[in-house]
């Protein structure tokens, strides 16, 4: 190897200038660009473009099979005076707030329970997650059957316990229908909240609890001053997702009630489907779904601040 230095000779090929082709193949930025092409193409064509198109459609009078014309904010003005639209906004807010609050409470409680030492822990954890695995529509059908007006197993059980004398009209009565869909949503969402919070709980050092026990802390104090502060960042993220997906829920409602009875369970998403696809008023439906965007932005802001706080708490630099 050492004789190379003693007998210098010309390399067989001269070192050439990097051509544009080499740049395209080896430059870090260009290489990054090529790697990003497939993902970006999908997201541009089927996400960013439709998102913009949706906002544009909401300012037109497009119908199925007919090109629309720009009509300004007429769709929104029409919705402003539409009591069904406001009812759906109210339903969505009610559905989201109640379901998210209960999901959070029950999910956190379930996570704390699953974090204890006990036999068959792994099996229990696996079983808890099943409602999250099974397609929402299929479990919603099971709930539809459970909440049937005549053959409901709940009515039957309550009658045999002597608590009621007549069948409860679960999905036919406005109040009951709301309770039922909210319950089904909670049932479906609790496993997600519980399992992700459990993952957060498992990162809390046991020594902190030992120290707190030595200091004479009660169980509530341990939860309030150790568990809860350490979990806040992950709670922020999980709850953002939970709120976001509850707010834009469609399939559960569609499978159970289709918005009925008398629009009592219509959410903004189901109403926009009904107006846009079934009634054919694409412009109006797009206006309803565009009206969800401000709420989504609010949820995203909360998530962003939640993430910021997490990095600060763990003392990490923003990598």
């Amino acid at each position, binding site marked *: 190897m050492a004789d190379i230095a003693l007998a210098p000779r010309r390399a067989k090929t001269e070192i050439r200038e990097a051509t544009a082709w080499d740049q395209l193949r080896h430059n*870090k930025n260009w*290489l*990054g*660009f090529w*790697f*990003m092409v*497939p*993902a970006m193409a*999908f*997201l541009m064509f*089927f*996400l960013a473009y439709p*998102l913009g*198109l*949706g906002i544009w459609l909401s300012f037109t009078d*497009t119908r199925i099979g007919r090109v629309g014309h720009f009509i300004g904010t007429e769709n929104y003005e029409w919705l402003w005076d539409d009591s069904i639209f406001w009812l759906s906004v109210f339903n969505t807010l009610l559905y989201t707030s109640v379901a998210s609050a209960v999901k959070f409470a029950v999910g956190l409680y*379930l996570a704390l329970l*699953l974090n*204890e*030492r006990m036999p068959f822990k*792994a099996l*229990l*954890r*696996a079983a*808890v*997650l*099943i*409602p999250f*695995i*099974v*397609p*929402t*529509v*299929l*479990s919603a*059908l*099971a709930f539809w*059957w*459970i909440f049937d007006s005549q*053959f409901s197993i709940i009515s039957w059980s309550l009658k045999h316990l002597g608590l009621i004398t007549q069948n409860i009209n679960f999905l036919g009565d406005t109040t009951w229908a709301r309770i039922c869909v909210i319950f089904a949503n909670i*049932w479906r969402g*609790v496993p997600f909240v519980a*399992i*992700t919070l459990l*993952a957060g709980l498992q990162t809390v050092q*046991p020594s902190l609890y030992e120290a707190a*026990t030595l200091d004479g802390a009660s169980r509530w104090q341990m939860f309030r001053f150790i568990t809860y502060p350490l979990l806040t960042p*992950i709670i922020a993220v999980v709850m953002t997702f939970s709120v976001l997906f509850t707010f*834009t*829920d*469609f399939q559960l409602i*569609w*499978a159970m009630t289709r918005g009925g009875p008398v629009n009592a369970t219509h959410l*903004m*998403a189901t109403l*926009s*489907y009904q107006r*846009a696809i079934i009634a054919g008023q*694409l412009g109006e439906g797009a206006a309803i*779904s565009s009206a969800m965007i401000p709420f989504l932005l609010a949820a995203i802001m909360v998530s962003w601040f939640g993430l910021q706080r997490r990095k600060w708490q763990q003392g990490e630099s923003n990598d």
Partner: protein
Amino acid sequence: MTDLPAPKVDLKSILSTPARVDNSEGMSYLQSVPRRIVTLYIPLSIIVIILLFPFYWMGLTAIKPDDQLLDLDKYNPFWTWNPTFKHIHKLLFESYYPHWLWNTMYVAIGATVLSIIASVLAAYAIVRLRYKGANVVGGLIFLAYLVPPSILFIPLATVVFQYGLFDSPMALILTYPTILIPFSTWLLMGYFKTIPFELEECALIDGASRWQILMKIVLPLAIPGLISAFIFCFTLCWNEFIYALTFLQSTPNKTVPVAIVNEFVDGDIYRWGSLMAGALCGSLPLVILYAFFVEHYVSAMTGAVKE
């Protein structure tokens, strides 16, 4: 030159060991048994029973004879002594159900494979190539994760129509990746970050191209992450409803969730048996997949949130 014995390091096992497993008992020995029963076992079993009851009911309804389904007083509704496979038979041999199952599987696998390929490339580029603006792109992809299908389906329906994809499985295979790519990119970014930089540097010095590094070093080490991303995406596809409801029209083309809701719901009061059988058969493939990959599943779910 003396040959140093190459240290045999099983990289895979090092990389896949959890950071720290704590098996200490903590403070739980301070609790008495009765107290544990009241504060732990009773609430836990109530919650688990509520979470699992709908599946029991679904399964039971699917195998009950019709007369027992509707007569709650003569028979105990919580059990049946003469199960029947009539509903399942009707489902599999007298309806389009096998078609629907096949469609769902086809769409789910197609969309998942496309998304995983796109996500692997994107995640690798964001984490390891670190081109100009990689962080911004990472943030944008996270934002894309937060855009729900319910605000996209109306404009997407017009787009799908323009491209001539209406009522074809391709419409779903091409639109589902918008849901899957953000999620799996984010998940894979987390996995790629855990792979030591030094390995790639060694390969670069040995003359490997970026493509070879990705295929021969990064991907084999990220297999757990790939499995997580794959099964999670598959489940999301199977679960997707609103796009399938909007973009598909003819009965044999539908996916299982849409078809069950639209085709099985008729005026027949005896529909419950076949409806529940359909729901059961539609859930079983996912539950079986889940049973084999519980850990991957959990890491997919928590990984995407933690990152």
